């Protein structure tokens, strides 16, 4: 089973990288660009085959390590 995890900054947390990308896209001539937010993405191969147990396991990984829940949210996709 494969877990795909997206980690994004909580609303309200400044995202200088996103802002810089928005600026750079503007310089490159792209128009109509609003907010840009940058996050992280992870793919993890799991031995677990049960979806429910896998989700629990991945949730624990996110809480314990992968996301800094002080400033980040995460969401999990299992395939």
């Amino acid at each position, binding site marked *: 089973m494969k877990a795909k995890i997206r980690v994004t900054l909580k609303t309200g947390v400044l995202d*200088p990288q996103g802002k810089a990308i928005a600026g750079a896209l503007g310089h490159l001539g792209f128009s109509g660009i609003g907010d840009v937010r940058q996050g992280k993405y992870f793919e993890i191969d799991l031995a677990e085959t049960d979806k429910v147990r896998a989700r629990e396991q991945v949730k624990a990984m996110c809480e*314990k390590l*992968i996301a*800094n829940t*002080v400033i980040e949210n995460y969401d999990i996709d299992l395939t």
Partner: protein
Amino acid sequence: MKSAVVVFPGINRERDMMLALETVTGQRPVAVWHAETELPSVDLVVVPGGFSYGDYLRCGAIAARSPIMQAIKARAAAGLRVLGVCNGFQIITEAGLLPGALVRNAGLRFVCRQVRLTVENNRTFFTNRMQTGAIVSCPVAHGEGNYICDTETLKRLEGEGRVVFRYAEGTNPNGAMNDIAGIMNETGTVIGMMPHPENMIEPLHGRTDCRPLFESLLAA
């Protein structure tokens, strides 16, 4: 004053820190390897700068979850003094010993330069030889030293005098909230700071501004 310096793989300013501690306090600190589960009996634990685990994932995140940090957390809860510098600040913050988070510099680049620091609180184990309001030169060398926290936490830090160092005179190198360069926990036993006082203690470093910080350890 007995001290220990914790070494994680990828930490690289442990020699600088040990040299400063030894030079100023006269006692050579013990190096503690990250895989150990017990701390030696010391008066102070320092988590030095560097790139623990390459700072992969987030700065300090992986180191914060290592076995030795569990021991440090337990001893810190019992009142042991802990100082985290640069990556050390990031590690102890990730470990929950200090509130908030350190994120990418606002300028998005690593910055190595001299800044000016105001000592905001001199009633701590690392500042008691200084005057509150004193300004010292100190170098920074980091890519992710931008301190952030929620408004509630910020209010408490400021209200309780827990901002220990602030970037002075427009020298904030990273966009940190309220120019915060260093903070402490509620009891004042844990201090974290981004700048590198260990690199400003002898004439070779250009100035010796940060020597009194290490001298403070002797009085505390």
